[in-house]
């Protein structure tokens, strides 16, 4: 069974959430419970404060790009009762994903939400310090999204959004091929012009 040994049934959690917060649950599954993204903080508050669930610790927070929507996955656990709860917030808006931050409930969300924002581009409302974590401010893409192609996936004339391919990437020289695809510059035309000049100077 893919579910963890101490994982609570999603149906049971969903029933309790639905009884306390009407309309918050959008889907039930054996392993997890799906909730509306705009009510996820209420759900986390409820699970955190509830005696039956006692979700004292946010064990893991991550996200999945499903092409049409995002899932933000919360793995909660109770240290006293020794069980795990999986909550998924479904973010329908793929263009401009936004949902409430879990930081007011769990301080452990501080860096995990920054990581999700950095790599998946999901913004968290109410996060005290939402900046890029690994990449730098101004990096034009969110690499863990499915429309971002990694090096092995780039073929032919593919270009990642906001990133530039330089003319020399078509070369057979392996050292230069290593740089394919992910060189960040400002304007595409300006960069192409600079690259052209650099090559001419060379």
């Amino acid at each position: 069974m893919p579910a963890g040994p101490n994982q609570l049934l999603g149906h049971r959690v969903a029933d309790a959430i639905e009884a306390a917060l009407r309309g918050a649950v959008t889907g039930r599954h054996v392993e997890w419970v799906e909730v509306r993204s705009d009510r996820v903080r209420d759900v986390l508050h409820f699970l955190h404060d509830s005696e039956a669930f006692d979700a004292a610790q946010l064990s893991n927070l991550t996200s999945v790009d499903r092409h049409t929507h995002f899932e933000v996955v919360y793995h909660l656990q109770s240290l006293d009762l020794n069980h795990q709860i999986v909550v998924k917030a479904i973010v329908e808006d793929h263009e401009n994903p936004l949902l409430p931050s879990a930081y007011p409930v769990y301080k452990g969300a501080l860096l995990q939400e920054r990581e999700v924002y950095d790599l998946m581009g999901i913004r968290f409302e109410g996060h005290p310090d939402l900046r890029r974590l690994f990449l730098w401010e101004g990096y034009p893409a969110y690499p863990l999204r499915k429309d971002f192609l990694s090096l092995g996936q780039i073929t032919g004339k593919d270009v990642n959004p906001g990133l530039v391919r330089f003319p020399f990437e078509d070369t057979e020289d392996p050292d230069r091929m290593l740089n394919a695809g992910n060189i960040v510059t400002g304007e595409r035309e300006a960069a192409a012009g600079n690259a052209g000049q650099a090559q001419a100077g060379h």
Partner: protein
Amino acid sequence: MPARRRQGTNVNSTVEPYVLNIGPQHPSTHGVFRVRVVMDGEVIRDLDMIVGYLHRSMEKLAEERTYTQNIPFTDRADYLAAMSGNLGLALGIERLAGVEVPERASYLRVIFAELQRIASHAMANGTLVSDAGAWQTPLLYMFREREKILDLFEMTCGARLTTNYMRAGGVSFEPPPEFWPALKELVAELPGRIDEYMELLADNEIFLGRTRGIGVITPEDAINGSLVGPALRGSGVPWDLRKAEPYCVYDRFDFDVPVGIRGDVYDRFMCRMMETRESVRILQQAIAQIPAGPHKNDIPLALRPPVGEVYSRVEGPRGEVGFYLVSDGGPAPYRFHLRAPSLINLSLLRELARGASLPDAVVTLGSIDIVVGEIDR
């Protein structure tokens, strides 16, 4: 000018707060980890951590590699505890694909995971003592045991750090015949070595002065801040996945979970020391109990787990190492997420550093025990 200087600095002068940059290349940051601190004289007013110097986008790369091809990545995440990372991912793949593991392989996994824990704790405590001022000597003492453990790794799987030892369905190699006497000798030797360190450090007045009451984390903060491993147990929360959610054959061994009382740097140090003792106990029992049999079940090369997802976790030296794997039925994971204890244990760093002096913050960071490869992935 020289005459005035000899009279000492003027204590009444006010100094504007200034920004001090530490790292990314600095011995106290334990890797390419950078912090910028706002200092008001000797006191830290604010702290900002800057990570990502070692970011290799492992999670993206994982999406175009098969499950087995991803196991070497876990070596390079937490490079001081490669075995624990290997084990977490192997268990995740097994649960996702429904693969059985021979009993002997489970025992070998426990033996190597515990050896790795001892090696990693030796490194963590050695560098912590270095941070506290005992420059290099205790660290090199502790490296003595770590070297022997890495030798055991090398004779089994050929690598010392990036072991790539665990597989879905077992382990990659049966240890050679010379492994067992060397392991038994090490296990017999370790309790005496730990006593030696305790004698040198546990009651050392300078070490106590540098670590007692420094970087105190309350149990409530530790739980709410998602802290795991010795950082959580140092605050008195007896949470260990080997007990709470026994994987492999951990439920067959008799061992204790050491916890601290005060939640300060010293308690986290002592937790690691005591855990080393418990690891030795587990090793003794595992060596006595290990059955004969195959070390690996054969699995298809192109493993295609059914559609689904799994969150598998093991207790690594730094705490809960979690793997969130989503399968769409293909040979490569649709989504691969590594829950990095080193990163998440830093959630409280800013709060801990505010109001502390710079040397105390360095010791606090050392006691949390980060590995930058795992932070950045």
